[in-house]
């Protein structure tokens, strides 16, 4: 109907079909540079199924990666594929994708329901179909009671949920969420996390970006760590920690009598150092985190110690990045 010469997937010639053998998301040696700044350099990953957390500090390249996927940016080199199709200048794969941008700005003058219906119709639904879908997704993110209110009156957490709902209206197979938890209060955070986990259980491929490790860990164990445009680590978060065992770790034990506990803990071979924070807290240093964690319960039970809490104080993204980059952040 419209002479769009470079467009792939014209209805008249051939319908766009997803390549079922290809991974849902594939980056093959993708680099993206803005002038002299490399936002992504040689990233190669393939993701299919489950919830994946994309972790990185600000400017690590998370948003660039998502924008490449959404065809907003053109890769300087390498290939980006969604369902086996290059998304640059070709919006065809988006019929199977839901995207939640990080921008806070929404169409404040619309009601949540209208917003989702309008954008649902861009998937080719009729008004009735879109209304039905909108009611479904708004129920999914538990916004049914406020769905006829203007988005401008919503709190930040509600707006995030509206954005997530709008991305789900086409029942997508791939859902991309750019910083969905940013700026939300704990309650909204929990709701959104449950929604994402639910999506993962439904067998969708979900990509979530964040710069806070423990948030991601509450949702999924499958993580990708980006730093300065490179993939630093990829895989199960616990497995990554195991691999980091060569680096010194700290475990903070909270107990009644730290000195008594220290005597028992000394028996664990892997412990390389100890210090007392105060008389109720003991800090253990080790190079084999997994081993210590596996032996610690037995030592505590045998020694009849009362331990109120075990905490890894440096177990956040920052310290992992410090280890991974050898201290050069």
């Amino acid at each position, binding site marked *: 109907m*419209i002479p*769009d010469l470079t467009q792939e997937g014209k209805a008249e010639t051939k319908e766009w079909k997803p390549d079922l053998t290809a991974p849902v998301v594939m980056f093959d040696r993708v680099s993206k540079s803005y002038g002299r700044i490399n936002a992504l350099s040689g990233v190669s990953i393939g993701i299919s199924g489950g919830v994946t957390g994309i972790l990185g500090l600000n400017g690590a390249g998370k948003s660039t990666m998502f924008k490449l996927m*959404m065809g907003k940016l053109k890769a300087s080199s390498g290939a980006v594929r969604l369902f086996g199709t290059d998304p640059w200048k070709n919006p065809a794969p988006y019929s199977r994708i839901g*995207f939640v941008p990080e921008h806070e700005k929404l169409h404040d003058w619309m009601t949540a329901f209208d917003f989702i219906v*309008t954008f649902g*119709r*861009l998937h080719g639904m009729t008004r009735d179909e879109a209304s039905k879908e909108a009611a479904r997704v708004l129920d999914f993110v538990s916004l049914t009671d406020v769905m006829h209110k203007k988005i401008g009156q919503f709190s930040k957490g509600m707006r995030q949920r509206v954005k997530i709902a709008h991305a789900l209206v086409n029942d997508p197979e791939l859902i991309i969420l750019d910083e969905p938890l940013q700026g939300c209060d704990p309650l909204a955070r929990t709701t959104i996390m449950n929604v994402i986990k639910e999506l993962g259980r439904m067998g969708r491929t979900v990509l979530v970006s964040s710069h806070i490790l423990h948030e991601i860990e509450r949702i999924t164990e499958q993580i990708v760590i980006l730093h300065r445009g490179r993939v630093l680590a990829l895989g199960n978060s616990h497995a990554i920690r195991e691999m980091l065992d060569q680096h010194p770790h700290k475990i903070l034990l909270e107990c009644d009598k730290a000195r008594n506990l220290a005597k028992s803990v000394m028996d664990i071979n892997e412990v390389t150092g100890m210090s007392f924070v105060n008389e109720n807290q003991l800090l253990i240093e080790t190079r084999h985190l997994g081993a210590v964690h596996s032996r610690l319960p037995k030592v505590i039970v045998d020694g009849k110690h009362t331990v109120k809490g075990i905490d890894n104080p440096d177990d956040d993204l920052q310290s992992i990045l410090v280890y991974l980059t050898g201290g050069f952040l």
Partner: protein
Amino acid sequence: MSSRMDSIWSKLDRKATAIAEFTIRQYRTRISTWAVMIAGILALSMLVLFYIDGLNTEFEAIDNDGDSIDHDSDGYPTGQEIIEGTDPFSAQSFPVGVTPDPASKWINEDDFDWDAIEANDMSQGYDDDGDCRTRTTSSQRDQNDNNIECDVYMDWNIYTQEHTIYSDGGVDEDPDENLYGQEAQHRAFVLGIGKFGIVYMLGIMLPLFLATGLIREEMSSGTMHYMLAKPIARGEVLLYRMIGYIGVTWPYIMSICLVLCLITGFAGPGESIFRWSDIGIWMSISLSAMLVSLVYGTIFCGFGILWKNGVILALLLGVWELGMAFVAIASGGDSPIKFFSVIGWGLTLVDSATMIFWPDNNTLIEVGLWGGGQSVTSWFSGEERFVSLPAAEALSTFSGSTSGLSLAPWASAVTASLVLIIQAAMSWFIGQIVFKSKEID
């Protein structure tokens, strides 16, 4: 969902209505839309007030040939004495047994008797008051040497592209100023407000305010991300946004033209209760303004996509178009350079329609500028020029005497409309190419 739409080229109608409807609702929530539209209505209302004021002011009747004066004070005005064959300058010579006419009978007594549609190289006029027909010799009665006595001969000079009027003298020399003035003023107003007020001002201001940010504002605020993450090509987004834009501007333009057509049609001069022939003019003004606003809208929207400060490009184009509008109007439509603009084609459309619906318009202008043949010699340049009738200058300023296309009026109207549509399509095509290859942060 039972059937998944895997092709982005399916269900285009649904996507189009969704975006167009969205765009119209978005316009509705913006104060600037209302501010611009209300400002437009206020400005046009002010012009209409001046028009109504002009209608209520009667043009003063002038005795152009001076035959209402009784020079010899014998009670008979000069015109009556000429007809009766007595000496108007001698108090002893006067018609006997005839009641003297009041002086007012000899004012505006020789109005135009022009019926030709295309009055080129044709004989026109009738000497109502008889001051030509009563002349003694044939050569006195045929001063313009076209072998027809007591007529007015209109000649079209193909080199100067101007009409010249040769009169036998005393023919149609005392026209009704008010009758002519009201008609000419009405037409000048319709064309002036139509060409400048609606086609140019509305045609360029509405797009400047409403279309420049159509894509750009969404891009800079980040809300464009939602729309571009859907299975819909960017060229389509641009197209459907433009449909939403014309969904707001076109009804506005049409209703303004309708209201003005009704006001001026009922209030305007003329025998009938409504000036039916004006409807065609207003329709052409409305069509021209709609097409022009569409072309400008697409271009300005493209400027907005191209560059963050696209409004600067839009303003520069607006100034160029203003210059072209003045060129087109000053040249009476006959200027090739006007075709290098959008407004030039828009005005051509109105000029063609004027030739279709007011076929006597050019004649009316020439007659009004000739004004009965009275001439004055300028003390400044020594040039002799006719004293024109009221509003004739204004009508000649705002009317295009030709479409500049050397085609029949209907053909040039169709051509101008097609060119405008092609311009809109081209700007959309270029705009979507720019949009498609734009990296959006």
